[in-house]
């Protein structure tokens, strides 16, 4: 509680100086920390000037600089993203991060898959995701030389190392790693910039469809199928298991939307490896949170996410030993 409160005082001070330069003469009102980001801090506030009140977001994240550049590059490719207003510098005294426009809409996956308000939007969400992913994948990787680039086998080794570092045996993960090693696809002919966390929960949805793609901090370079498989992981279907894509759509629509926009010929059959990989990746991410919980982030939320590793174990069994 105390850390959060002192954080708030420090952030309010830094923002006051900064926002007056972004919107001339503007004051900061209604600063509040939003829930939803497990590892990153997201703050909402209003920049209030004589011209009116503009809702904005302060995102504080270690990879804030590159995230802001990715969002701007995506915007140039016609991907719906918030407008980045300012990238934090050391002189701002707020750490790494950036300020962007607040985009109104729903991000809670459970509401997105169930609410009547999105019933019409849901019909085209899957093909629209395909189209947007194709646009993300059209960003020139040469613009982002600092992003990690991996082949599928290197990626698998990375996550296997992460799993082993937890020093906690998980027989289901061992089965999945073996299956993935034995069926691993070759390195892609053209590695692409991947969003890395494109899923229901990181999209701002309105009755009109996708308004913004958020949370670019896991972006990296690799096989475009990785983003497609990740979007299909059961954890992001929020109970609607029959709707493979984010709990709102069908895989055939996603692939059709992707192929049409990318001029590519991605095949549905190649998705299973990446869905298994994505499920295992999420499982390992959860499993490694026990270490964070015991060291840097002893929060209730961290403990709760760590105990979600088992949801991926049952999904992996359903995929591989059903």
């Amino acid at each position, binding site marked *: 509680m105390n850390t959060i409160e002192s954080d708030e005082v420090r952030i309010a001070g830094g923002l006051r100086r900064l926002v007056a330069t972004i919107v001339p003469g503007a004051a900061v009102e209604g600063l509040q920390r*939003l*829930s939803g980001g497990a590892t990153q801090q997201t703050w909402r506030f209003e920049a209030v000037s004589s011209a009116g009140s503009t809702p904005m977001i302060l995102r504080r994240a270690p990879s804030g600089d590159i995230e802001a550049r990715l969002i701007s590059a995506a915007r140039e490719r016609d991907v719906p993203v918030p407008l980045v207003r300012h990238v934090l510098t050391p002189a701002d005294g707020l750490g790494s991060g950036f300020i962007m426009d607040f985009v109104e809409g729903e991000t809670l996956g459970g509401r997105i898959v169930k609410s009547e308000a999105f019933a019409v939007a849901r019909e085209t969400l899957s093909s629209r995701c395909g189209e947007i992913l194709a646009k993300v994948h059209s960003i020139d990787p040469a613009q982002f030389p600092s992003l990690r680039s991996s082949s599928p086998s290197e990626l698998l080794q990375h996550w296997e190392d992460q799993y082993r570092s937890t020093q906690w*045996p998980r027989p*289901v993960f061992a089965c999945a790693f073996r299956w993935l090693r034995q069926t691993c696809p070759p390195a892609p002919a053209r590695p692409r910039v991947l969003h890395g966390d494109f899923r229901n929960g990181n999209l701002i949805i309105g009755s009109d469809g996708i308004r913004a793609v958020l949370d670019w901090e896991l972006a990296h370079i690799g096989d475009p199928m990785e983003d497609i498989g990740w979007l299909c992981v*059961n954890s992001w279907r929020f109970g609607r298991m029959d709707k493979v894509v984010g709990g709102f759509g069908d895989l055939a629509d996603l692939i059709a939307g992707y192929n049409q926009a990318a001029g590519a010929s991605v095949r549905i059959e190649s998705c299973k490896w990446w869905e298994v990989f994505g499920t295992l990746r999420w499982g390992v991410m959860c499993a490694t949170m026990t270490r964070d919980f015991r060291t840097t982030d002893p929060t209730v939320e961290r403990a709760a996410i760590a105990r979600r590793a*088992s949801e991926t174990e*049952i*999904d992996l069994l359903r995929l591989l030993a059903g």
Partner: protein
Amino acid sequence: MQDQPTPGEMLKTVAEFLRSAGPKQAQPHIAYQVRVAANVLDLVARELAIAPVENTLEAGRLRAILGRDGSLEELNTAFAEALDRGTLSMLTPEVRDHLWATTLAKLSIDQPTYSGYRATLAERTGLANL
């Protein structure tokens, strides 16, 4: 012998208290964390109730599969290594049944409302009714 109320009873009461107090928090991220805290207490209560029996069953199955003894962690380490090397396969009935039984028990503690768990239970009940 320890005293009463039992840990399960007290955890249940604290979780209920948090659920009634949480929404009154003005800060949305604090209200969210209070809800998560109540869910964590429920998980702990389920583990206290379910794990003693399930861990014993799990260890028994692992001893039979591996033909050796050891702590539950030692047995699972050996089992995971054998699956990784391929000396045991998840597709043999004994191994597959064990993986399912162990995973279903974990989910009944960690996330009894999870879609993959509910769907598996529904499918198995459906099969049992055939």
